């Protein structure tokens, strides 16, 4: 562990290391929390692990931190195999979901804690702590205690504390889940800004897909202990690899279709297929609401059920003559033109979509 602590700017130059998790396995009783998870994080990258409760994302993070043992597999940081290294020697900074600030210490003392353990001298320690508190915008709260701070402030202090030791890797375990919605949005932007400034390789665990898409360089969607897809947010959204990813990230319509020769016939139109789709026969096509156009048509094949004006956009729910319910997202000005009972035609955009066998 290095006691040479330059300013925050230098952290980026010296600290960007790569992380590689290889074939991690972890079983609790009969539950397979991790099922052969393999994942690489590039130096300076922020990877978000996204998934429902019980998918193993937190377990993966804790194995990386050393707080959980893996039953099998390897953990490498900066090319070094640290699978057998205890937590307190791994040089990682961690921000927990809640309650992690030491209650008997002031904010400043909390931030200085890691430095104190490393034997950093008083003056340097104070300077570094001040710098960290300025980075998260809490230098005025330096002498307050945890219970005197709001949830958002506490998490910022936790972040400052984790970064004070200039760790090789930054780990964030659902840091925003316990906060109010508005604070969440503000704080996630700040976390991303700070992470980019400091340049630390970061693993961010969350169950909130908007969060993951908003701040990550790449997002890994997990299910039942393994990755379903690991890709940049745009890729994940537009070209989901599996139905689970398409369902979990953003809203999706599942529409009946028939598939042949690389195209799907749905809603009276034909769209190309994404790789990984079912190739023939009856299938369900997964189409995003914003990929559907709605036009008034007295000869149309669907009836409007409801329409909502949501400020910056509009939503129309319609029922096809075939009995399917379709959600379309349209221009906020146009949505006022649709009322329940109107006959409409719904047309998919010619973008590629994912099809799964209708079983």
């Amino acid at each position, binding site marked *: 562990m290095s006691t040479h602590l330059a300013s925050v700017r230098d952290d980026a130059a010296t600290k960007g290391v790569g992380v590689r998790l290889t074939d991690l396995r972890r079983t609790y009783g009969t539950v397979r929390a991790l099922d052969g998870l393999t994942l690489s994080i590039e130096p300076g990258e922020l990877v978000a692990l996204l998934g429902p409760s019980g998918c193993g994302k937190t377990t993966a993070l804790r194995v990386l931190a*050393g*707080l*959980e*043992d893996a039953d099998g597999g390897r953990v490498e940081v900066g090319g070094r195999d640290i*699978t*057998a290294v*205890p*937590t307190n020697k791994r040089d990682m900074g961690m921000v927990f979901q809640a309650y992690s600030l030491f209650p008997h210490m002031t904010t400043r003392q909390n931030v200085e804690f890691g430095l104190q353990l490393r034997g950093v001298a008083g003056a340097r320690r104070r300077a570094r702590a001040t710098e960290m508190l300025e980075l998260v915008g809490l230098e005025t709260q330096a002498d307050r205690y945890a219970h005197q701070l709001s949830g958002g402030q506490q998490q910022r202090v936790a972040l400052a504390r984790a970064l004070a030791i200039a760790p090789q890797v930054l780990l964030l375990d659902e840091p925003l889940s316990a906060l109010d919605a508005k604070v969440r949005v503000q704080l996630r932007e700040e976390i991303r800004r700070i992470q980019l400034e400091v340049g630390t390789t970061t693993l961010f665990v969350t169950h909130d897909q908007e969060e993951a898409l908003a701040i990550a360089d790449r997002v890994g969607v997990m299910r039942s202990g393994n990755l379903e897809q690991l890709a940049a947010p745009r890729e994940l959204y537009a070209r989901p690899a599996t139905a689970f990813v398409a369902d979990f990230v953003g809203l999706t319509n599942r529409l009946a279709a028939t598939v042949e020769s690389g195209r799907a016939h749905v809603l009276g139109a034909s769209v190309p297929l994404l790789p990984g789709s079912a190739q023939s026969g009856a299938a369900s096509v997964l189409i995003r609401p914003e990929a559907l156009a709605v036009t008034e048509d007295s000869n149309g094949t669907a009836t409007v059920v409801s329409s909502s004006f949501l400020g910056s956009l509009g939503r129309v729910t319609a029922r096809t003559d075939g009995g399917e319910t379709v959600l379309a997202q349209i221009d906020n000005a146009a949505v006022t033109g649709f009322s329940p009972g109107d006959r409409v035609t719904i047309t998919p955009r010619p973008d590629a979509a994912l099809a799964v066998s209708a079983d």
Partner: protein
Amino acid sequence: MRLQATRRRRQAWFRRVVVGVVGLFFALPLVAMVEFTTRAPGGGRSLDTWTTLFDLSAVDRDYPELKTGLIASAGLAVLTVVIMLVLLVPTMTWVRLRLPGMRRTIEFICLLPLTIPAIVLVVGLAPVYAWVTYFLGESSIWLCFAYVVLVLPYAYRALDAGLSAIDVKTLAEAARSLGASWFTVMWKVILPNIRTAVLLAAFLSVALVLGEFTIASLLNRDNLQVAINLLGKRNASISIAVSFAALLIAFLVLFAMSFVGNGRRLRRVRRSKES
């Protein structure tokens, strides 16, 4: 390789040693009590003491003071709990609803007996009980008045925790707006919702009453502990047997109660662990 597992194993080892040693210390007198009460006159084991204890007619004949003491304590336990509940539940609810400023005062008074131990209280109670005897006679049952004071701190804490867990104000207001009398509010709305707290307060009170010796002895009245003490001078075996029986029953009740209260909390703990 398995670092967390090693730590867990070390903790388990520590746990077993500490609990083992302390458990032995706890168990020794308990074992001794059983051993003592099962001694046969010429060596060897005998269940005579225990069979005598359960032979109610024999107890009545040979150890009348035990019978009086037991009956007195049983009555005291019931009466103390009733008075305590009648006194505390309405008062505490009322304070929450109408006089929140009084809460600190009530709390202070209820916790005062912690600072005024029984031995001190009994000194001051002597003249008060002279009046009680004047009006109500010399029966031991009137010790209940003093006992309610002794249980105040424990009962208050238990009931306070229970009342804090429910929204007393909203419940009472809702009931009143539907036309309920204050009695109905207490009996049908508040009380059922603080069941566990009431049970706990009642149990703590019973435990205290059954174990109380100081006030009963120094005010020259009968109760279980006084009886056991008197009996001990005559027949150590029986008195030890009674003590052990009382202990066992109290333990079983407390153990059973730990399932009642914690059920809800436990399910929440288990659910939060899956993520």
